[in-house]
């Protein structure tokens, strides 16, 4: 479903992503690991279209989307969340999610009927909130949410875009360990394996092991390993990179 | 031809002095001070008044004293403005900042009226008494030469302050990154006042220098404000180099505009400004 070839991104002299190539198939849940500054977030930004690559290409559903603007990619089914949660602080939780639904339904440009009068969209938004256990907060402003709930809302917004490829940038960072798994459970439940895939940037190895089928290890902008988590984690070089021990 | 360039320089001198203050304040405090023109007017009225008082004595001394008084007064008023109005809203959204300086503008216009009355104030003795210089076969009023020289001097002084003194370097630091500067423990409050006073006194100087050639009137500050605004937009917000280049450019553009496109003397300047804004919203020497 996603094919990345020789992707390159430079920031000035510093090369953040260096000739990265990999694939993701339907139903896969892939984790992306690596030390800080390895280029994980940059990779997510490149695939989501937040920034444009200097070289290489990105193919999604057999189409070359390397130069597509974000809104086109989203239409095609690439959605993302943000490592540092990005919400709409002056809109209610419901509207935060509803905007996404309007957007993906191509209704976002409608300017005559109040949002509340779009029952179908609203109920869909509520359903998503329920799925992510936020339904009781729909009237609140993001500011009044707990860190964990903010995180979940951020993910729920990405999910609401009815994506086929979900790019999750550290969905559980900054969340109490007890909640981490609750969040992952909901996410994984939400992913319909028959036609969806996900790429999750993650630090927590337990999550990598428990919830993802494949892991990509990134170092200094290049992929140093790609495979089943348990096996990959055996490789001393990887352990050295990730935990700075062995080798 | 040479005369056009001279006129351009002469006009540019005023542009430079007024835009200097505007750009420093914009750079250091991120505020577009709409009341800046009123400071110019204040300087003009103060100078006209002083020269009027000293009408009996020699015009040159009257002029010098007038300049000193105007700069002192505008600096003081600048200080008051900064402390009373700008400081409280420095962290507030843009609309409040622009509006409060707008309020200050309205306020000062009427204060000037209250103090000096509504009639035009002429004080042309210094200009009349100086006569014409003979530069490379061209007749040109000494006074205009004097204005250009003094402006160059003032510009140099400001440059020295900004480049060489500790205060200047700290000001530049604030302009670059206010929060960082604050974190570094730079006394922002005091320096903001200093920047404001410096800018204000420059506007005052410009006003004082204008008065001998043209009467002090109500609303006299409007045109200088707009002109300085154009300069800042062209030169780049908060950039001294920008102020210099901008005022030279606008000065010449106007001088030759009047000479050869008399129908467009005003719009052409805005056209230049807009074109530059479209290409580089931060201006020629401004930072993004």
């Amino acid at each position: 479903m996603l094919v990345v070839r020789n992707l390159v991104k430079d920031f000035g002299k510093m090369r953040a992503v260096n000739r990265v190539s990999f694939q993701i198939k339907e139903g896969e849940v892939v984790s992306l690991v690596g030390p800080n500054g390895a280029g994980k977030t940059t990779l997510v930004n490149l695939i989501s279209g937040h920034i444009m690559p200097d070289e290489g290409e990105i193919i999604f559903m057999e189409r070359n989307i390397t130069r597509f603007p974000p809104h086109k990619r989203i239409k095609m089914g690439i959605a993302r969340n943000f490592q540092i949660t990005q919400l709409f602080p002056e809109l209610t939780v419901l509207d935060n999610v509803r905007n996404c639904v309007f957007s993906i339904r191509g209704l976002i440009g409608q300017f005559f009927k109040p949002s509340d009068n779009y029952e179908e969209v609203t109920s869909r938004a509520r359903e998503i909130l329920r799925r992510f256990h936020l339904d009781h907060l729909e009237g609140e402003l993001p500011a009044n949410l707990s860190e964990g709930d903010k995180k979940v809302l951020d993910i729920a917004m990405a999910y609401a875009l009815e994506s086929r490829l979900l790019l999750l940038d550290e969905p559980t960072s900054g969340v109490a360990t007890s909640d981490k798994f609750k969040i992952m459970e909901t996410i994984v439940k939400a992913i319909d394996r028959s036609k969806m895939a996900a790429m999750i940037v993650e630090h927590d190895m337990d999550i990598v092991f428990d919830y993802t089928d494949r892991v990509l290890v990134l170092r200094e902008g290049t992929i140093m390993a790609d495979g089943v988590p348990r096996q990959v984690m055996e490789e001393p070089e990887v352990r050295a990179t990730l935990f700075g021990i062995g080798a | 031809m040479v005369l056009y360039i001279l006129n351009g320089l002469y006009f540019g001198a005023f542009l430079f002095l007024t835009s200097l203050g505007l750009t420093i304040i914009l750079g250091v405090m991120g505020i577009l001070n709409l009341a800046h023109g009123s400071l110019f007017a204040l300087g003009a009225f103060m100078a006209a008044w002083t020269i009027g008082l000293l009408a009996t004595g020699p015009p040159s001394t009257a002029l010098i004293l007038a300049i000193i008084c105007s700069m002192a007064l505008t600096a003081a008023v600048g200080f008051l403005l900064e402390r009373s109005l700008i400081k409280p809203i420095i962290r507030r959204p843009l609309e409040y900042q622009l509006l409060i300086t707008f309020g200050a503008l309205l306020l000062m216009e009427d204060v000037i009226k209250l103090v000096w009355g509504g009639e035009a104030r002429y004080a042309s003795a210094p200009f009349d008494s100086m006569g014409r210089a003979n530069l490379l076969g061209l007749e040109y009023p000494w006074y205009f030469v004097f204005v250009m020289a003094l402006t160059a001097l003032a510009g140099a002084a400001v440059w020295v302050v900004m480049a060489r003194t500790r205060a200047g370097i700290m000001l530049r630091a604030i302009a670059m990154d206010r929060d960082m500067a604050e974190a570094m423990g730079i006394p922002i409050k005091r320096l903001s006042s200093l920047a404001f006073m410096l800018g204000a006194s420059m506007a005052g100087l410009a006003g004082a220098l204008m008065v001998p050639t043209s009467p002090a009137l109500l609303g006299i500050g409007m045109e200088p404000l707009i002109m300085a605004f154009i300069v800042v937009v062209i030169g780049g917000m908060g950039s001294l180099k920008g102020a210099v280049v901008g005022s030279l450019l606008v000065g010449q553009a106007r001088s030759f505009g009047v000479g050869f496109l008399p129908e467009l003397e005003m719009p052409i300047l805005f056209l230049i400004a807009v074109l530059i804004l479209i290409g580089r919203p931060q201006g020629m020497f401004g930072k993004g």
Partner: protein
Amino acid sequence: MAGRLRRREFVKWTGAGALGVATGATFSSRAYGATKKEVPKGPIKIAAVSFLTGAAAAPFGIPGDNTFKMMADIYNQQGGILGRKIELKSYDEAGGADAQVKLARKLIMEDKVDVILGYISSGDCKAVLPLSDELGALIVAYDCGSHELLEGEKSPFKYPKYTLGFRSKAHLGIDNIGLALMIKKYLPNVKKIAGINPDYAWGRESWRVFEVAMKKLFPGIEVAVTLWPALGATDYTAHITTLMNSGADIVHSSLWGGDAVTFTKQAIGMGLFQKTRMAYSRGEPYPQELGADFPEDQLICCAGTHYFLYPPHDKWPLNKWFVEEYHKRYNKYPTYPCYHAYQAFAVYKAAVEKAASLVGGWPTPEEIAAAMKGLAIETPSGYLHIDQDHNGREDVLVGFTKKVEGYPFPILDPKRMEVFPAHMVNAPAGVRTEDWIQSWKV
């Protein structure tokens, strides 16, 4: 009552019916309480609008306003108009055309003044005079010059343009035609002219009339350059240089107020007067303003025959009285705005008294207007005639500046002073000034 009527009117309109004239009557009665056939007790409310602040205050607004006050005082000493005391209020003309429209609307609709005597700027006149008929109130423009103010689109045009709008003086035609005739007489071999005029109605029209007249009198004359500084400009250096390089023999200028002073000072400083000669279409006040600095041998027009030395005091005592009275009160010689203010006030007074003698009792604005049309009175500067087009007709005085013993400023050289009679400098009613000039046989 009026309210109910208006409601009916509204209902009628929504019924897409036509509006009755009745509402018109009720309106004027409601808004103005114009009383019928007996003289009301209360004072006459007169609004005088002149520049009291800004560049035009010192040379125009203040002298004009002084004269209004002086005349109100004098008339009141004589028992007012038809026994009614005059209550004169002065207003500032500053703020531009839009501000003046708002002010005039307030004066008429809320303060319900009997008449507005005012306006120095042509821009303000053009904006305000139409309100006379729109709001049904008498407005007399006293100093502005725009000749298009009361002229139509093309000749012949229907007049009067406004039933209740007047100008108690001649328009700028006389100044600029006067200058042209003067140049023809004294400087017959002018080859090249230039112009520097303020960029609005007054400046544009002054130049147009002057240009048309010059081209008529000097076939094939060359126009070097025309400059249009904004009103209230502070720096004329670029303009002056352009004029000095233009090689023009004569530079026409209708700059006025502070602008004229500023320009002239900077021009003296830059040596313009060594290179060319200025022709000021309204120069009369500036020799007094600038004093001895004002260069000699420049052409000056007096917006009529308004000059503190003309008409000669022995031949025309009214001018002697006026000059002395004004000088006594304000310790300055009257400039032409003073004469214009006198004219407006005197014309209104005469018209009211004439109308009253015809209808008996206090006349309505319409009746006063009818009486004002065709009125002819004596003024300190000679005879003034308000023609059928509601515009004044005057002779015009043009001269050259000259330094003379006994005056701290150059006066008009008595030996080279010309008065062109009204019929030589005013177009007849119904003909546009430009077309009239074109029709001359030279």
